[in-house]
């Protein structure tokens, strides 16, 4: 059965909110995205936050895609611990290009789709000066 997806963006600081702000401009309506802005308050408790996300998510109805900011960062590490317990997808080193692509892909999200999305050249970090473009085809049909 195809399940719709719910997306959680979890980061250090306000990055998650910033990404949503950028997504609103590019994609439009992104009301469904939940954000976790880690360590912005002294009483931030990562485990408690993750547990409450997992408790509230209806796994029968929706796929859950958690996007964190950095491999090896504590936010991502925090979610890794729950991978054995809950059937959610965890993506890290998330950037705006990946999120735009994820949100614009309708329908079913599964391990195979996510594997292909994260390896798409479109979402990788690039040194723009070094990108030599062939522009031959721009001038003609």
């Amino acid at each position, binding site marked *: 059965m195809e399940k719709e997806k719910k997306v959680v963006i979890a980061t250090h600081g306000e990055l998650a909110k910033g990404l949503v702000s950028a997504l609103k401009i590019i994609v439009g309506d992104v009301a469904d995205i939940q954000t976790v802005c880690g360590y912005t308050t002294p009483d931030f408790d990562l485990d408690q936050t993750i547990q409450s996300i997992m408790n509230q998510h209806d796994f029968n109805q929706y796929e859950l895609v958690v996007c964190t900011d950095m491999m090896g960062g504590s936010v991502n590490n925090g979610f890794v611990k729950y991978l054995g317990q809950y059937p959610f997808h965890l993506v890290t080193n998330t950037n705006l290009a990946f999120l735009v692509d994820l949100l614009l892909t309708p329908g079913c999200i599964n391990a195979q789709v996510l594997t292909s999305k994260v390896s798409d050249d479109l979402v990788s970090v690039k040194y723009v000066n070094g990108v030599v473009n062939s522009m031959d085809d721009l*001038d003609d049909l």
Partner: protein
Amino acid sequence: MIKAVRVDHRLVHGQVAFTWTHFLAATRIIVIDDKAATDEFQKMALNMSKPAGCKLNIFTVEKALSKMAKVETLNENIFIVFGCTRDAARFIEGYPKFKEINYGGIAKKEGSKSYGEVVYLNDEEVADSKKIMSLGTKIFMQQLPTTKREELRFAD
């Protein structure tokens, strides 16, 4: 076939390259803008923002007009993007076949008035817009497929 026509001062950027292209299932974007078509760096930047699986052309108004007979024969979903009302009006004068055109973003500038959230027109742009309308093309303002669509109308 031509799926949509837009005026957007940022040309091919996030909203256009991802959201609209996706929404329209466009397989070719044709940018018609005299300034961009003659600026190698601008062309390079546009080429980088080209979405995967989508072809891109950047033409001057004159060149675009000369290509329309061929464009009409292409079996592709085509998205035409103008950078300014001036080039759009000049193009439509030579090719008055569009039913409607989307004003997606026209920057605020000295002497311009706001007509929509992201559409600011000065006197010349108002004149261009009136010319476009007089050629039978309706103008509507809309930023994204999910945001509101409003028809542009002038009081006089």
